[in-house]
């Protein structure tokens, strides 16, 4: 498989996971949250800063939960890809020659 095909396939899989499959994810508290509630330090969590247009993986103003969550997932994936990919490209060793070859 060519590198470009591989990378695009991987990105499509990630977008489907975050944009579509995430709707079906469990909404139960995760291990740490559950333990915090069970043991009794859950109420020390400070959620006051949790507002913002994409808080809790929902796009403000989009009412349909499937669309809102899916859109939030897609945005998050693309932002993460851009920052991490950009950072990796900036940090990488550059080939002294064949710079344009792939």
């Amino acid at each position, binding site marked *: *498989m060519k590198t470009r095909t591989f990378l695009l396939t991987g990105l499509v899989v990630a977008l489907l996971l975050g944009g579509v499959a995430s709707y079906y*994810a469990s909404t139960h508290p995760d291990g740490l949250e559950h333990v915090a509630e069970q043991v009794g330090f859950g109420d020390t969590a400070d959620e006051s800063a949790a507002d913002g247009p994409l808080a809790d993986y929902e796009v403000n103003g989009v009412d349909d939960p499937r669309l809102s969550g899916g859109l939030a997932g897609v945005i998050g994936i693309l932002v993460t890809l851009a920052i991490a990919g950009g950072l990796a*490209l900036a940090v*990488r060793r550059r080939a002294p020659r064949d710079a344009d070859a792939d």
Partner: protein
Amino acid sequence: MHVPDGFLDAPTSVATGVVAAAGIAIALRGARRELDDRTAPMAGLVAAFVFAAQMLNFPVGAGTSGHLLGGALAAVLIGPYTAALCLAVVLLVQALLFADGGTTALGTNITLFSVVAVGTGWLVFRGLQTVLPTRIALVPILAGVAAFVSVPVTAVGFVGLFAVGGQAPVALGAVLTTMVGWHLVIGLGEALITALVVSSVVATRPDLVRGARPALAQRTLEIRQSPTAGGAVS
């Protein structure tokens, strides 16, 4: 396992912030050796994939869920230093855009995910690789084992921080046993997802899997009849 604001006191959060910053500085230096024109796009993809996978909470029973940490997965795919950077980017995006994990707890979360989870995952993986036969078929299995171990170890890491800076007077023993108990179960999910993802990448492009390089190098030495450099110019 994203730690929210408020669980840990300010001095502990500052201390983990320092650890996280030092970790990122070390990772930036180390990642330079891991990244080239071919692997840099892979790093972006792995970060995006971990972000997506962390949205997929799977049920682990009794009203609890877990999701991938991705430390071992990222380390095996792109190397530990780059993995640490990628996890830090994922946590940054989650905290700043999605209010998932506190902003004052960002250092804590980077310490737990980028340093503890990635570090444990990579050390277990490489440790097993050195004592077991170098076979490419083993790479996904070892990645799965490393992923499994990384989850309860990261949970213990949190309990350690909670012991120092926890904001509620609760019995530490109870925090430790319940954290480790639940995260052993979550670790099984982590292991399964990691093994599946690594095996699909190994099946399609083993050359893009950092952890497969020892096995690939050995295989190449066995097969090659003439030393023509088959596209491996770098």
